[in-house]
């Protein structure tokens, strides 16, 4: 049985905001199935009482001092933006209806 269907791949691509085409869906579904069957081997390890590791560095709550330090200027922050208007990032409309 396949671990993942073409429909699931299409749904995941939508969640990840990737407008994949039909040819890609066909290719990815087969390839992801092979990969998932292989990585599912992690399930062979019985590890009910094993704590998870998210990170190898045993540090928590790393905070900086609450003091002002120099940051990027507005022009620098906007320098790589694909579209800028009135010193801000300009984005396409985010609502369905015209405001």
């Amino acid at each position, binding site marked *: 049985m396949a671990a993942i269907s073409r429909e699931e791949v299409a749904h995941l*691509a939508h969640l990840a905001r990737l407008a994949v085409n039909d040819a890609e869906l066909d290719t990815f579904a087969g390839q992801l199935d092979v*990969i998932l069957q292989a990585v599912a081997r992690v399930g062979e390890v019985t*590890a009910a009482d094993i704590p998870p590791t998210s990170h190898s560095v045993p*540090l928590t709550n790393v905070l900086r001092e609450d003091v002002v330090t120099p940051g990027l200027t507005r022009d620098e922050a906007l*320098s790589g933006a694909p579209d800028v208007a009135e010193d801000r*990032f300009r984005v396409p409309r985010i609502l369905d209806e015209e405001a």
Partner: protein
Amino acid sequence: MTDVTRATAAELGRLIGSGEVSAEEVTRAHLDRIAEVDDRVHAFLHVDAEGAIAAARAVDAARARGEQLGPLAGVPIAIKDVIATKGVPTTCASKILEGWRPPYDATIMERIHAAGMVMLGKTNMDEFAMGSSTEYSAYGVTRNPWDLDRIPGGSGGGSAAAVAAYEAPLAIGTDTGGSIRQPGAVTGTVGSKPTYGGTSRYGLVAFSSSLDTPGPVSRNVLDAALLHEVIGGHDPRDSTSIPAPVPPVVEAARRGATGDLTGVRLGLVREFTGEGAEPGVAAAVRDAIDALVKLGAEVVEVSCPHFEYALPAYYLIAPSEASSNLARFDSVRYGLRVGDDGQRSLEEVMSLTREAGFGPEVKRRIILGTYALSAGYYDAYYGQAQKVRTLITNDFKAAFEQVDVLVAPTTPFVAFPFGARTSDPYQMYLADLYTIPSNLYGGPAISVPAGLSGGMPVGLQIMAPTMADDRMYRVAAACETAIPTLTPPTLSGSNA
């Protein structure tokens, strides 16, 4: 010195410091070498000749003023294109960042500049560091200087090839699952992955944040250690940076170079000695270990029973983190924007941009990671992979109670011909079989040349406990004294 491009970084630093050769001459020689060979190798995505010459002149001027120069002042370096370089294009070999010039420098770049090193340019890689062959670059492949018809490894194939082809004495790589070490192995160069948290990730474009580690690429162990010392150490701008001094890596490399390993215990990982590696690779690694024994080292077989689950765990953890990290490429703050016709919504523009801007491997991993993190699958995949990570860490800790370092092949096979593994992504993932455990554990690991198999370089990997980077440099430097030096590659093809 007739050809400064053949010198070691340590020698160049000494010659520049004593005034026997100028930093500008050294930089121009390397720029000439790039002009001569890089149309064949394609290690570089961007060469900053003007910036390099200016930086070199600044070093020469400082020397003329009588300033004391550091050991690598004036020494050229190539930088993997995943590191933010202020004002210099940084693309991660992706179309989505084509032409982006960061408004800031990564911490390691600040340290490289402060050391007086000269950045030659940015090197090719698999897109967003996802791959083992540099074939997933959006800007064309890099060719292996040992055989132009074969891959240079990945993801840092450009940095390794630049160093192997004498275009630069040093380079920066980043290692998430082997992207420094595997290219080192297949190009006959040295690739060092420091302890995770030992080198700052600030300004490294994130792929898998709990694994990404910048580190040195070089032609010899001492040069790697010298660069490690420049870039290493605590950085308050990286919350996972370890607040401790850099281990004494240079001293350890010099000690190793005496060729005495009396009392050093090498752990041979039983699980990595069976099938898996090509016979030629296994034989070369066996010979290298025998050579270390002749230097006084003792070999102990150790068992790391969970290492066989490292590859599956990695290919859940890394894509999961990538799917989250790469959400930042949303067509708003930097990079590409596609389909913004005044009618389409932000969501549609975002989806079209990401579809157009990302290549196939990046898309596969984003989808895989999105799946592994989904409700209903999280416990079986991501959660279970994190438990495997704990078991692998325990395997390392148990092994290091018996031995000082672990030794294994760096990668199961020598450089393969272009196209051999692109149609089946999992076949490509197998290149990382032996490198991934150290990433999941966080400990340092280095690949050093261990001879040839069928005319192509093989790497020996040396893995050490976290923050014992000096230990791996000592063994690696000793290895250099015992293994015959490789003849430089010819920069020709074999039609492999």
